[in-house]
């Protein structure tokens, strides 16, 4: 493989950049390593999310982030999945000046059949919603998941007011790259762990990691009815 081909993939770019980082990602303050237009951070839940879905033949995956070509290619190569990119960030970034906010957005999106979806990448979209909007979104997502289906979500643990919101690019199964993007709703809400569990009930928490950069990563699973192992 030539260098030119190698750097066309994010993983290739990350592997090349990593050679020049002193001590690797884990040694940098807060677990961060700057590279290019965004920072790369380790992810604790993406790998388990992918591994569980890899066991599902042709899984159905919903990505609440924007369409990112490298993410699409990565998920396709790893999971051979049916992917529904549903860019909720684009709608969240709108000032909702036209009407009833997220409810009107949800009426037009996430139209998969209930119980059809094997995995949802929610990223940190809940951070940008108030409680009512978050509850409406959570209800819809939970209904979409099949029993045994997984939801991966990220939550900030400290109040932040940033001029930009974040998009997440998959660098590899264990790393995410943050891409800054303009957003109208950049004030981020803090979701304590207890509130997250209430918000996403009846999903059960499979993994919860509080990372050094003040972000909580969570992997949740829709329970399987008794007697039916998922």
């Amino acid at each position, binding site marked *: 493989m030539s260098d030119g081909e190698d750097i066309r993939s994010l993983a290739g770019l990350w592997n090349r950049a990593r050679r020049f980082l002193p001590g690797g990602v884990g040694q940098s303050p807060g677990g961060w390593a700057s590279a290019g237009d965004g920072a790369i951070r380790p992810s604790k839940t993406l790998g388990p999310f992918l*591994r569980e879905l890899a066991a599902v033949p042709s899984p159905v995956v919903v990505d609440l982030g924007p*369409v990112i070509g490298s993410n*699409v290619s990565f998920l396709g190569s790893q999971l051979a999945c*049916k*992917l*529904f990119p549903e860019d909720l960030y684009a709608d969240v970034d709108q000032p909702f000046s036209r009407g009833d906010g997220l409810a009107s957005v949800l009426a037009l999106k996430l139209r998969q059949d209930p119980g059809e979806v094997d995995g949802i990448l929610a990223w940190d979209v809940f951070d940008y919603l108030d409680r009512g909007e978050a509850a409406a979104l959570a209800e819809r997502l939970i209904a979409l998941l099949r029993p045994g289906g997984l939801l991966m979500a990220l939550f900030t643990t400290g109040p932040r007011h940033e001029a930009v919101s974040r998009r997440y690019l998959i660098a590899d199964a264990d790393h995410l790259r943050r891409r800054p993007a303009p957003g109208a709703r950049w004030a981020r809400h803090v979701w304590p762990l207890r509130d997250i569990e209430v918000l996403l009930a009846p999903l059960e928490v499979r993994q919860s990691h509080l990372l050094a950069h003040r972000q909580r990563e969570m992997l949740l699973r829709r329970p399987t009815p008794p007697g039916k192992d998922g």
Partner: protein
Amino acid sequence: MASDTGSPVEARHPAAASAALIGKSVVVKGELEGSEDLTIEGQVEGKIELRDHTLTIGQGGRIKAQVFARAVVVCGELVGNINANEYVEIRETGSVDGDVVSPRVAIADGAHFRGSIDMQKKGPVQAKGAAIEAPAPWKVPPSLGA
């Protein structure tokens, strides 16, 4: 439907040099079927079938059609579903509103896409607990250039 040597289309799409061309002033309504590569710079409404060949929608192309081809490269606008046996590539000037079925899909930064992407591969399913490998880098077919 031959293209003129040195046309802007060829400059933008090297593969188009040997492909049939629907020029920018041409409007087609109905079914298009072919057994050679095709580049569209004009407008097509209906259905396009190039089962074993590549369809390239140039920057000026405006398509409202269901597309069946071996490979599809979108630099213009496509409204409709794509079914490609090998790959679909949506370049930065490309726009697709529709569902894509193809084992490999590449979407450039800046491209517009709205729909679902079905990348199910025909063949053996990954074994349970299979290790996650680094993603295979997207390789641009040599005929298309970088």
